[in-house]
């Protein structure tokens, strides 16, 4: 049966040609939004027993290598990490260095995201220590994959899709290596304290619950209990103490910055104005905006409007920044529910403000759960590398075909009530609006508004929104008009040319395959 499927592709519900098997495992093609019905029971890790663990609770071992050996590290295993240390992460690369020295082969690295600081992993992909990465890839790692150099096929998932894959048993984590800014000897761990504080550990929770083995690595061993713990020691096998888990200034930026670009500020102003004039922005709204320069500017403009009208947002969902913290502190936001803190003000706020609440992506984004936070959000501000005439969005590849970004929470957030993409109409001659996205990451039916510096296009499916801004004076255009305008300025672009070979699969939030990325033709 498997052999028959090998190499076979089908056209999925989004019209994309996708395989029925990836890395030797059968996969389900995308069936449409909300159409796939999962069956069976959730995955569970093996049952442990207290009799295997020290009665005094002290699980500290001498080194990461020892911990990995004790966890039975061997070829073919799946190793997970989280990305809370971002560009300052000193642990992930270390794992594969140790594995390489041990002669272990064909590992699957399953990070919640990778960063440019993880580029050294390319060495371990080259020498066969690592078979593939199932997680986001930026810069050189993405290029490596696009050029067909990775042995296995990459699998890209959203943050929520990653949790879904863990929960449903699509990915079985053999060893989770979880860096923690503070931990006690039992393995209770949190994201605050010490020199490497990152605020929260929202992306590590599912790994701790579902991995067969869990190693906590810390540079700040505290007395038991490490409180308030985000990771509970009952799930942890070993604790490793190192000098440094990360480079502090690269973990959180000292300060997140609003864009200074006049064009981006214009887009931000236009977005705030659209939110106000359409009536989406109202007392009690629930909103989310990212940490990009334009999103921050939008947050500031929205804050001004809320203040001016005497309104208050019920809650905001993080990634949190100082601008969101300011809304909380000045009374224009009730709570921040937070999966990651982007700057020092946000880290401090998590530590000190009881209304700034760590909130795991496990609860916020997982599609295979009893409802999730994203569909309750009124305003969702997102980006994209490309949007097509059917409002389909791409966030992972550029128009030249190269894989350059992860999905992050983007797909999950598409389920919000009003999904708004403030994006420049072209970036250095590259038009953002295309006939058909290079890689489909999100179906157009979920994307409501595109806001560019040269006009706003509302998805024709959102008749209510179109009606709400009629006669508002906003520069409304069709998406076709926006595309034509960009092409008149930039010229009509050629398309990237690909080989047949599939180098990465893009999963939808329910685990089905929405699209694939093929090898760049060189």
């Amino acid at each position, binding site marked *: 049966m498997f052999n028959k499927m090998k190499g076979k592709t089908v056209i999925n519900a989004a019209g994309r040609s996708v395989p029925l098997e990836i890395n030797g495992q059968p996969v389900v093609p995308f069936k449409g939004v909300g159409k796939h019905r999962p069956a069976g029971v959730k995955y569970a890790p093996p049952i442990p027993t207290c009799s295997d663990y020290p009665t005094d609770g002290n699980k500290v071992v001498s080194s990461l290598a020892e911990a990995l050996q004790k966890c039975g590290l061997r070829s073919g295993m799946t190793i997970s990490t989280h990305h809370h240390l971002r560009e300052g992460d000193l642990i992930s690369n270390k794992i594969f260095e140790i594995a390489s020295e041990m002669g272990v082969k064909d590992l699957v690295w399953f990070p919640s995201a990778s960063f440019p600081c993880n580029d050294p992993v390319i060495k371990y992909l080259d020498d066969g220590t690592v078979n593939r990465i199932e997680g986001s890839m930026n810069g050189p790692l993405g290029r490596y994959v696009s050029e067909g150099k990775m042995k296995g096929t990459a699998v890209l998932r959203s943050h929520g899709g990653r949790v879904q894959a863990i929960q449903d048993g699509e990915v079985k984590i053999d060893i989770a290596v979880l860096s923690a800014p503070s931990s006690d000897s039992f393995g209770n761990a949190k994201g605050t304290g010490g020199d490497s504080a990152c605020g929260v550990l929202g992306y590590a929770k599912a790994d701790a619950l579902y991995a067969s083995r869990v190693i906590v690595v810390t540079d700040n061993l505290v007395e038991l209990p490490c409180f308030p713990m985000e990771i509970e020691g009952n799930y942890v096998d070993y604790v490793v103490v190192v000098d440094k888990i990360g480079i502090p200034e690269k973990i959180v930026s000292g300060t997140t910055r609003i864009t200074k670009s*006049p064009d981006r500020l214009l887009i931000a102003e236009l977005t705030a104005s659209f939110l106000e004039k359409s009536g989406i922005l109202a007392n009690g709204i629930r909103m989310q905006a990212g940490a990009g320069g334009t999103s921050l500017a939008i947050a500031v403009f929205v804050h001004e409007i809320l203040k001016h009208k005497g309104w208050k947002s019920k809650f905001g969902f993080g990634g949190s920044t100082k601008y969101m913290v300011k809304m909380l502190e000045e009374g224009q936001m009730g709570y921040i529910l937070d999966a990651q803190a982007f700057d020092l003000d946000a880290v401090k706020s998590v530590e000190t403000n009881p209304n700034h609440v760590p909130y795991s992506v496990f609860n916020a984004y997982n599609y295979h759960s009893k409802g999730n936070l994203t569909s309750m959000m009124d305003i969702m501000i997102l980006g994209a590398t490309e949007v097509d005439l059917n409002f389909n969005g791409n966030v992972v590849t550029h128009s030249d*075909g190269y894989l350059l970004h992860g999905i992050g929470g983007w797909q999950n957030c598409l389920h919000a009530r009003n999904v708004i993409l403030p994006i420049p109409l072209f*970036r*250095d*001659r*590259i038009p953002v609006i295309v006939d058909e996205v290079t890689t489909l990451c999100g179906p157009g039916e979920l994307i409501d508004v595109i806001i560019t510096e040269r006009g706003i296009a509302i998805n024709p499916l959102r008749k209510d929104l179109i009606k709400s801004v009629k006669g508002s004076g906003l520069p409304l255009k069709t998406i076709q008009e926006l595309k034509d305008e960009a092409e008149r300025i*930039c*010229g009509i*672009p050629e398309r990237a040319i690909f080989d047949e070979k599939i180098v990465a699969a893009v999963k939808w939030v329910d685990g089905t395959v929405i699209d694939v990325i093929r090898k760049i033709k060189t």
Partner: protein
Amino acid sequence: MIATAGNAGPGIRSDCEIILELKSGTGIDIDLASKVKTLYGKSIIKLSEEVLSFYKIKNAKVRINDSGALPFVIAARMEAAIKKLVNNDLGFLPEHIKENRYTTSVDRFRFSRLYLPGNTPSLMLNAGLHSASGIILDLEDSVAPERKDEARILVRNALRQVNFLGAERMVRINRGAMGLKDLQSVIPHNVNLVLIPKCETPGEVINVDREISSIIKRAGIKNPVFLMPIIESALGLENSFSIAKASKNVVAMAIGLEDFTADLGVSRTKEGKESLYARSRLIIAAKAAGKQPIDSVFSDVGDMEGLRQNVLNSKAMGFEGMGCIHPRQIAVINQGFAPDEAEIEKSKKIVSAFKEAGQKGLGVVALGSKMIDLPVVTRAQKNIDLAIRLGKLSKNWIKEISSQEGK
């Protein structure tokens, strides 16, 4: 023979560098490095070949280092490189888009005019989006002396290709002979207004004006080309009234305080005590000549509150506009110089009184016990028109007033 034009390297966007070497008997060899090679590689090569062939170059080695330059920029850079090696007066002209052929009027509002360095394409592309009254493509101080030739070509192409969305299309030329050369290059491409920098005598205005009229006559251009001399020295200030009167095409007089304070040997302060007399003098000279007085730029782009104060002072003194060096300054300046609520209300009363008097056949217009002169009505009408344009007043305000009175 090798020539280089344009810019490349870290931080450079929307531009390209051309390195051109003329050869013999080798044919054309183009080596393109571009971040948009997949999307536009073929069209960049094709355009480059067209430019080479236009200048009858059959053998050359060309290296293009591109950071997303638009076609009009690539063509300008190619032309500039070629002209360093080949004597040829012809220009390789991109299409003059139909949106770029509008004309402006003597008495239009000139609240904000945005300076764009003439050799930096990335700042030009979206400049029109920020609602400046005018956009200045600058060939003078923002362009290094050795880059004047390539900037002139780039500015010419920008005038044909970049849509400034209704902003008055301005060029600041260099002084003296170089300025006259600038005019040859830009005037045939629909310039609405020319800024004459460091203007000290009426003769300079007359020279520029004469050169322009001979160019437009030759080219059969119908649109007027207005002038805005910039006073930047003590001598210029002393001559400001005669400069303003030097040509009917002078529509506005600007003051440039950086150079002016340097000429006086004092430093420029935020309060501006050192230039108070100069600014007042310029305003009076301009008004006496029936021209718009325009204030200097406010150079701290981070200080929006300081800018707001500066605009209010400026307007209170009698200035009718101000320069800007960053697009974020435009909105503050436009709002500052635009009529405020009280002015709009007053203008409404004046205009309705005038219309009423006309309907009744009265020769004299009075508001309450005050007689109103015609220029006052004209200015009120201007305020009304502007308020409508700025969205501060409904088009049908006069009907709305009478219907309200009817109730």
